[in-house]
């Protein structure tokens, strides 16, 4: 694929580098972005890393001493491993749901929508124009105990008479699925839109069943979008805490809620920093593992 992309691009082979400012130009162009990244991401990240190793017995009034307290890490794992597992569990579950909803949707928009394509794309993106919080609060109203939906489900006995949807793991996973769905659909759409339908015709000509054509043609060609989409979905979903906070109960709290409380309520900065770092490390590990399994050399 990489090879194909390069030869297909029609680029002339790179000429010998010219001397002078042209050689510096790419670096100059990178400078603002790199400086931004360094100042607003690199430095705070480094401070966070340092804070995660502060003496846990320090406090706000006395200050924190740097004692290279690596023990903060096992301490937070021991205290908060259920929330870690739950975060990845919920995010994974939401991802599966989002794939079941998102793949057919992206395929339909890309290949079958015809002149409705743009309108449908706007429909996917439109909810993003309102605030994340407002969208989540709207779900609170939809799933409300005395709302129409719960009433209907109770009437048809899908829900026990005192059953509820709000404040359950179901509501949290639903919220995650809904809120991050566009991040999955858009990259998938971009891949599927480039899929040449003649390839599918060729597959049928060669006696492939529709299922085989999907497995051997559509799926492999949509892989880059699929991988990018799942990552864009999974990473923010596993660090999210708004859905658990608004749609869940303490029994559904995710690791984001714990970090929030460590920094803002308990003022335990070493623990909060250690948790943030573990979360980043865990997500990176999951991503690397996934890319290895997905067997694609390209991430984006």
């Amino acid at each position, binding site marked *: 694929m990489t090879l194909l*992309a390069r030869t297909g691009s029609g680029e002339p082979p790179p000429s010998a580098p010219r001397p002078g400012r042209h050689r510096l130009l790419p670096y100059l162009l990178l400078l603002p972005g790199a400086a931004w990244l360094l100042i607003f991401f690199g430095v705070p*990240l480094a401070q966070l890393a*340092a804070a995660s190793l502060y003496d846990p017995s320090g406090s*706000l009034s*006395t200050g924190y001493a*740097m004692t290279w307290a690596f023990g903060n890490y096992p301490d937070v794992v021991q205290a908060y491993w259920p929330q870690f597992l739950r975060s990845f569990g919920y995010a994974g579950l939401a991802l599966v749901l989002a794939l079941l909803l998102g793949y057919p949707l992206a395929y339909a928009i890309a290949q079958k929508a015809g002149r409705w394509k743009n309108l449908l794309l706007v429909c996917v993106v439109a909810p993003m124009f309102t605030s994340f919080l407002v969208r989540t609060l709207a779900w609170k109203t939809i799933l409300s105990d005395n709302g129409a939906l719960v009433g209907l489900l109770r009437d048809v006995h899908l829900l026990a008479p005192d059953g509820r949807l709000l*404040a359950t793991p179901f509501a949290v996973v639903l919220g995650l699925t809904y809120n991050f769905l566009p991040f999955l659909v858009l990259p998938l759409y971009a891949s599927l839109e480039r899929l040449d339908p003649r390839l599918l015709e060729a597959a049928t000509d060669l006696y492939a069943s529709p299922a085989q054509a999907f497995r051997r043609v559509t799926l492999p060609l949509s892989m880059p979008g699929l991988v990018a989409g799942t990552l864009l979905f999974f990473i923010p979903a596993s660090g999210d805490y708004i859905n658990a906070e608004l749609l869940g109960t*303490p029994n559904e709290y995710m690791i984001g*809620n714990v970090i929030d409380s460590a920094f803002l309520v308990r003022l335990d900065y070493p623990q909060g920093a250690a948790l943030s770092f573990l979360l980043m490390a865990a997500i990176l590990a999951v991503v690397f593992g996934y890319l290895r399994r997905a067997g694609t050399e*390209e991430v984006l």
Partner: protein
Amino acid sequence: MRTPLRPLSRRGLLTGTLGSAALLTMGGSLAGCGTNGAQQTEAGCVSEDLSGTEKKLAFANWPQYMDVDEKDESKRPSLDEFITKTGIQVTYTEDINDNNEFFGKVQNQLAACQSTDRDIIVLTDWMAARMIRLGWIQKLDPANIPNVQANLLPSLLNRPFDTENRISIPWQSGLAGLAYNGNVTKELRTVDELLTRPDLKGKVTALSEMRDTMGLLLGSNGHDPANFTAAQFDDALNKLKKAVDSGQIRKFTGNDYAPDLAKGDIAACIGWSGDVIQLSGEDEKVRFVAPDSGVMLYSDNMMVPNKATHKSNAEALINYYYEPAVAAKLAAYVNYICPVKGAQAEMEKIDPELAANPLIFPDEALLSKSKVFMALDEKQEREYEGKFQQVIGA
């Protein structure tokens, strides 16, 4: 065909990660020596008072905590009167929504003895206590606030974090107790009912303010929230944990329980008197209950932070709001407990019904049930708050 970007490869990602790690080690040395303490002293952080020359005052308060004109919401009658009377221009902002959040907003400035650009801030007892402990608040001059000395409710005098009544002056007070929605459940009288009654299962919330929830639970165990031991705290916490584990308690909330209680998603809860009175105004089946085992009395306090440059102006405003007639005007709008003696008599003239409301002007019976949570030192605060947070799931 568009020119494809060179794809980001696994190797590229790996190099990026390693690069970031190197950057991190480098930058880590910046923060490697730890942080300084946030503690300030009166001698170490001296504030200047420019009130003599600047007729200005910046007042930061919570939303809906000030009377507004019924016809024109941008007018605040009591505050406008102060401005006309004294000529002090007040910049009134509603930028305090949460004690912890606001603390996060100003902590860097105050820890470094810098100005927050606010002359009066309003924070709840425990947060006031923390800031006072950190030496972040200026002492007021008792001679400039005679009304406070004369009119502050006796039950709010000499609180443990402000024994001289000159650092934090109550703006409004309130009670934390029980509330229920009579449309979806029957009457509720005790904390134990809230935590165990089977018909309420999964329809109960409690407050994420540790002092309010734990104060009520300590009281329900027969212990004194104003003076308890670590073992008594643990007992009360276990009781709470049982209710969480059994699914009786659905959530821990800030102010956001109010709409859910009104809708009936929540049948009963631990809540604040002010919110519940407002709900009762719209639907009288929503009721506030002060259990016999005790209710928690809290206040939101006006304070002048370090480096605020208009202390005398702030004192003038504080003194003004302790005039009974002004206090009554404010209380008639906000419906919290009025901390000013004599305001009840003034309220008779405005609205006799409100004057008779014990949740605005508490009677002896209610005051005798109300408790102020024990003052905690930093270590206790962290220990108790940490244990509580574990039970409430974060």
